[in-house]
C-alpha cells in the first residue's frame, strides 16, 4: 500500500520554504510533488515601478546566493536596449565577479551536500574554505553577499590589487585540491551515499531541458559561457566538465571540476585585466529608449534569462521577465526520486542546487 508523506512548507529539514509531498511504498519513493510560491515577493511587478538605477538594486535581491548574476543579466538587457557597450575593463571585472560567485556558490553547495550526507565535519570545512572567497569578495566590493558591482554601462568598483586576489585564489585552490575534493571523490562513506543515486538519464535530461551542472552531469555539454559568450568570456580559455553517469556523484564531480576551472578563469582574467575606464556614460543623463532587451547568463545553477521591455517615453520598464535555472531543473527531481530510498530524497533534491527564492521571486 502506498502512503503520502507531506513535508513543509516550514519544515525543520528544509532550508527554504516549499512543500514536498512524497508518495511512498514502504521505503521506496514512487512519486513526488513539489509546491512552491512561499517566497513570492512580486519582484517582477515591483520592477515595473523602478527606473534603471533602482531596478539593479531590486534585482540583486532576487537571490542572495547568485545576486551578481541577476544584476549582470538586467544590466546586459538594459544595455542592449540603450545600445551601450561597456568598456573592456568592466567586462573583465564582470567575469571576475561572476566566477567568484560561482566559486562561493559551489563551495556552499558542497557544504550543504556534506550536511545532508550526514558529514557535518565536511559542512564546517566547506564553510571555512568559503570564508576565503568571501574575503576576496569583500575586499573588492565591500559587502559579503549583495555586491552591487554592476551598473548599466559598466561596473561600480574597480579592482585595484589583482596580485593580492591572485594570492588568495592560490590558497583557495590548494584547500580545494587538498581537502574538499579528495574527501568527496575518494571517501568511501561519502561515495556510497552518492553513487547511483538519483539518476537522470541523458535522454530524460534532454527532453526535460535541464540546465547548468545538472545537465552537464547527465552528459549534455552545454554551457552558455562557451555557447553564447557574454562579458569577456570569449577571451577566456577553459574546459566545460561533463560527466555521463547522471547520478548525484556526477553532479558532485562536475561542480568540483568547475571550481578548479573557475580558479583558472580567474587567473586568466586577473592577469589580462585591461587598463581603462570601468563604465561608460553618465547615469544622470542616460535615457533608455523604447525597445526590448534579452540577456542570458550562466549562473552557478544554470542558465538565467532576462527579457526586458521598455516602453516609450517612460523611465520604468513595461515588463521584466526572469527565468531562473531552478524553475527548469525542478521537474527533473520527480524523475530522479522515483524508485529512490526515502532517506536519499533530501540529498537528491539538493543535488540540483535548488534556489526557491530565485524561482518564486
Amino acid at each position, binding site marked *: 500500500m502506498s502512503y503520502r508523506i507531506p513535508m513543509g512548507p516550514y519544515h525543520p529539514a528544509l532550508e527554504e520554504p516549499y512543500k514536498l509531498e512524497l508518495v511512498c511504498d514502504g521505503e521506496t519513493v514512487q512519486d513526488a510533488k513539489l509546491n512552491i510560491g*512561499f517566497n513570492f515577493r512580486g519582484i517582477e511587478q515591483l520592477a515595473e515601478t523602478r527606473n534603471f538605477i533602482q531596478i539593479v538594486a531590486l534585482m540583486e535581491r*532576487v537571490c542572495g*546566493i547568485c545576486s551578481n548574476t541577476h544584476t549582470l543579466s538586467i544590466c546586459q538587457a538594459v544595455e542592449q536596449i540603450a545600445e551601450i557597450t561597456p568598456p573592456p575593463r568592466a567586462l573583465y571585472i564582470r567575469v571576475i565577479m561572476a566566477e567568484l560567485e560561482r566559486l562561493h556558490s559551489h563551495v556552499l553547495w558542497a557544504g550543504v551536500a556534506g550536511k545532508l550526507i550526514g558529514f557535518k565535519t565536511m559542512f564546517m570545512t566547506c564553510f571555512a574554505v568559503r570564508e576565503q572567497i568571501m574575503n576576496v569578495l569583500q575586499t573588492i566590493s565591500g559587502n559579503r553577499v549583495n555586491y552591487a558591482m554592476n551598473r548599466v554601462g559598466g561596473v561600480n568598483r574597480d579592482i585595484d590589487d589583482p596580485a593580492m586576489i591572485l594570492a588568495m585564489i592560490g590558497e583557495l585552490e590548494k584547500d580545494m585540491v587538498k581537502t574538499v575534493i579528495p574527501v568527496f571523490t575518494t571517501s568511501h562513506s561519502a561515495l556510497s551515499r552518492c553513487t547511483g543515486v538519483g539518476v537522470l538519464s541523458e535522454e530524460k535530461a534532454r527532453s526535460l531541458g535541464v540546465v547548468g551542472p545538472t545537465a552537464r552531469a547527465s552528459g549534455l555539454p552545454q554551457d552558455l559561457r562557451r555557447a553564447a559568450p557574454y562579458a569577456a568570456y570569449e577571451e577566456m580559455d577553459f574546459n566545460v566538465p561533463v560527466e555521463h553517469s547522471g547520478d548525484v556523484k556526477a553532479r558532485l564531480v562536475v561542480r568540483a571540476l568547475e571550481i578548479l576551472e573557475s580558479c583558472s578563469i580567474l587567473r586568466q582574467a586577473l592577469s589580462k585585466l585591461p587598463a581603462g575606464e570601468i563604465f561608460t556614460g553618465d547615469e544622470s543623463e542616460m535615457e533608455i529608449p523604447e525597445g526590448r532587451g534579452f540577456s542570458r547568463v550562466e549562473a552557478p545553477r544554470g542558465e538565467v534569462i532576462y527579457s526586458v521591455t521598455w516602453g516609450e517615453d517612460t523611465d520604468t520598464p513595461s515588463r521584466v521577465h526572469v527565468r531562473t535555472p531552478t524553475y527548469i531543473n525542478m521537474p527533473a527531481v520527480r524523475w530522479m526520486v522515483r524508485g529512490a530510498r526515502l532517506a536519499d530524497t533530501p540529498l537528491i533534491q539538493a543535488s540540483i542546487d535548488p534556489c526557491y527564492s530565485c524561482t518564486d521571486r
Partner: protein
Amino acid sequence: MNLWKKLLCYSRRKSPWLFHMNSGSCNGCDIELIAGLTPRYDAEQLGVKHEASPRHADIICISGPVTHTAVNAMKTVYGQVCHPKAVVAIGSCPASTNVFIDSRVLDGPLDRHIPVDVYVPGCPPRPDAILAGIAKAAEILAARAGQEAQPAAAPVAAEEEKA
C-alpha cells in the same frame, strides 16, 4: 529572586538555541546566519545551537520581508516556542521590508505581527553583527527567565484592523 531562578537565568544566557525562519527572504540573510554558526565566527562559543524544532528553541531568528503565505506559519511558530523566548529580526527586510516596499504580496514589517526584541539591520548584516544581536537576545532571554509573564503575543495587525 531565589537562588534556583538566578541559576536558571544564568544558564539561559549561556545556551540560547536558535530556530531560524525564512519569511520570504532572498537567502542572503540566511546564509550569513549559517556562516555565523561555522568555524570562522563560531556562534557555539556563545552556547548557540541551531535547532530544527521551534519547541526546543529559545531564540527565533526571522529573516525576510514577511509574505502573506508566511504570516500564519510565523505566528504558529512563535506560539510553539516556550517561555522565555526572544525574537531577532535579521536584516533590513523584517525591519522595513527593504527594497520590496510597496509590494502587494507582503504583509510586513515583522513587528505588525509579533513583538521583536532585537533588530539587526543590514542587507545582509555581517555574521558578526548577527552574533552581536543574538548575544543581546540571550541577555533579554535571561532577564525574562526570571519573569512569570510571557511577552505579549498580541498581533498588532489584528488591532489595527479592528480600529
